[in-house]
């Protein structure tokens, strides 16, 4: 696959604690994801999945614990710190600029300027940007509508694909990249879910580390190499996807099954 060092986790969190006021949303969480690995993060509503993902993306600072990116300890003060370290997040609520077309949405923040004096004045090369967006979507295998279509004129599924692709493009090519997805298929029908599944697998094959939060167990079966299960802010299981009884997974999610890490509970 890639020349990335596959013994060091792309992202490694240890002993993460996070409080929202008096609420302890995360308690002593250890979590890692290897390059090219897809980890499914499961748990019931309010288990702390989104919160943990936000810690990874720099949106929240943990009260306790350390974060390492490819072995190097980091401390994120904002999502842009994390994105500089190669970590991209797709949020639960889609963040597209409705009135703008697909190309603009994919290119914003990394526009191509025209050559020569016009470029110095900040003129953009619209054609080149469309071409690039088109080829990037082609490479991801998710071209769904013409680049000039405003995103408000896309179906919910197409929009979600564009939103996922926008983050995917930013990490793809960067073999050290980490992609965080919060419920990427929440609004999707069968075909779009398949589309996003394929996209996730292809990204992982490029060596990108992927964490995916979802309530969709079949999706997890399709794409995840490993699942980590949270229950009320604690990690209760960390098992390979293949070979694990789905009933056990459901048991850990609902809390019916005791934690794998009982001895560590404080």
């Amino acid at each position, binding site marked *: 696959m890639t020349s990335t060092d596959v013994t060091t986790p792309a992202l490694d969190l240890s002993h993460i604690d996070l409080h929202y006021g008096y609420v302890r949303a995360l308690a002593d969480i250890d979590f890692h994801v290897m390059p090219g690995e897809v980890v499914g993060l499961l748990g019931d509503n309010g288990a702390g999945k989104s919160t943990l993902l936000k810690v990874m993306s720099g949106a929240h600072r943990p009260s306790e614990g350390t974060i390492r990116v490819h072995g190097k300890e980091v401390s994120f003060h904002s999502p842009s710190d994390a994105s500089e370290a190669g970590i991209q997040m797709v949020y639960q609520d889609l*963040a597209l600029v409705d009135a703008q077309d697909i190309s603009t949405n994919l290119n*914003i923040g990394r526009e191509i300027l025209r050559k020569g004096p016009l470029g110095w004045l900040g003129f*953009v090369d*619209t054609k080149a940007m469309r071409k690039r967006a088109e080829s990037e979507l082609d490479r991801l295998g998710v071209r*769904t509508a*013409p680049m000039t279509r405003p995103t408000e*004129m896309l179906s919910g*599924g197409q929009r979600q694909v564009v939103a996922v692709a926008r983050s995917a493009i930013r990490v793809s090519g960067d073999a050290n990249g980490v992609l965080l997805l919060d419920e990427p298929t929440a609004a999707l*029908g069968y075909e779009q879910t398949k589309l996003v599944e394929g996209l996730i697998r292809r990204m992982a094959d490029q060596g990108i580390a992927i964490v995916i939060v979802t309530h969709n167990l079949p999706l997890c079966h399709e794409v995840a190499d490993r699942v980590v299960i949270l229950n009320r802010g604690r990690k209760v299981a960390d098992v390979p996807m293949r070979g694990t009884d789905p009933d056990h997974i459901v048991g850990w999610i609902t809390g019916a099954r005791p934690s794998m890490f009982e001895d560590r509970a404080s």
Partner: protein
Amino acid sequence: MSTPVSDSASRGAPSSAAAADTVVPTGHDMPRGVAALVFLRDRGIFILWLLLILVFSFWCAPYFFTWSNAMLIANAAALTAIFAAGVGLGVMSGVLDLSLPGTAAFCACLTGWLAVNKGVSLWIAVPIALVCGALVGVVNGLISLQGFNPIIVTIGTLSVLTGLASVITGGLTIPGLDGLTFMGTRRYFGVPAPVYIVAALYLVGTIFLTRTRDGIRFMAVGGNAEAVRRSGIHSDRYKVMGFVISGICAAIGGLVATAITTEANPDASPAIIFSALTAVALAGVAMSGGRGSLPRVLVGALILATIANGLIIRGVQTYWATVITGVLLLASLGLERFIQKSVSDRLMATSNLSVHQKKV
């Protein structure tokens, strides 16, 4: 060519043939009806203006369709157009700046005071007014960034600036600004100076919005600041920029108004912001931001002037112009709603990768 693909997809069962990767629309997969509706939405105001010109040309013949009358209309529209550019650009970036009349009065009075009372050259006093307009924008922007509602903030600064304008002039107008006629009543090649100013302003603004990186981001911030922020862009900078551009437009407007009358008046005229808003709304600029185009705003201002002009020629009382403008505005709202609904209906019916179609 691509139409049959989307047609079959919308009719067909979710067969394996519809496996997403194979459906790659080639470009013009927009249903024809949608293209027409979008055209009407984006260009309707130009058609409306042409219709108005046509009607008045016959109804007010032979006085309406003449060069000199065209110049009258253009000149009458100029001031509204300048303020409409300020309001419009602000709204597109997501801020409604109500302080514009105050900024205009303040900047104009500052220039008048510097030129008349301090003997400062106009070549210095006029640029100072523009810088001042920009500074007012920065202040408005920085206050609004603290999380206060921009409308309330700018009502506050409107009041402060109007007061300050009177403080500068001692509550009186400053007459004798004859040096400004070059941008007021003077004509060049038969065209009044304010028309050139409007043309330049709209040209630069349109190029900025549609061709430059900052312009595109500016517009995107108006549409969804959070999305832009998540792309690693300091969206706050563009919000302040919206106020700054509005402020500069207001300063230009204040100067032109002063140049036309050759006296600086500290009384802000809030009425101007309403005619500017009317032009902006007529142009279909969404008040929620992120949507709109400057050429349409310009035509909006021209429509207001055209109606007033035509009715005056026919000797109809001018308040009828206000009534007609209001009706047009309301009708345009209805039309826009209709277009939006039809477009989404059509798209839903033909979308080849739609989640909606499964709800049927």
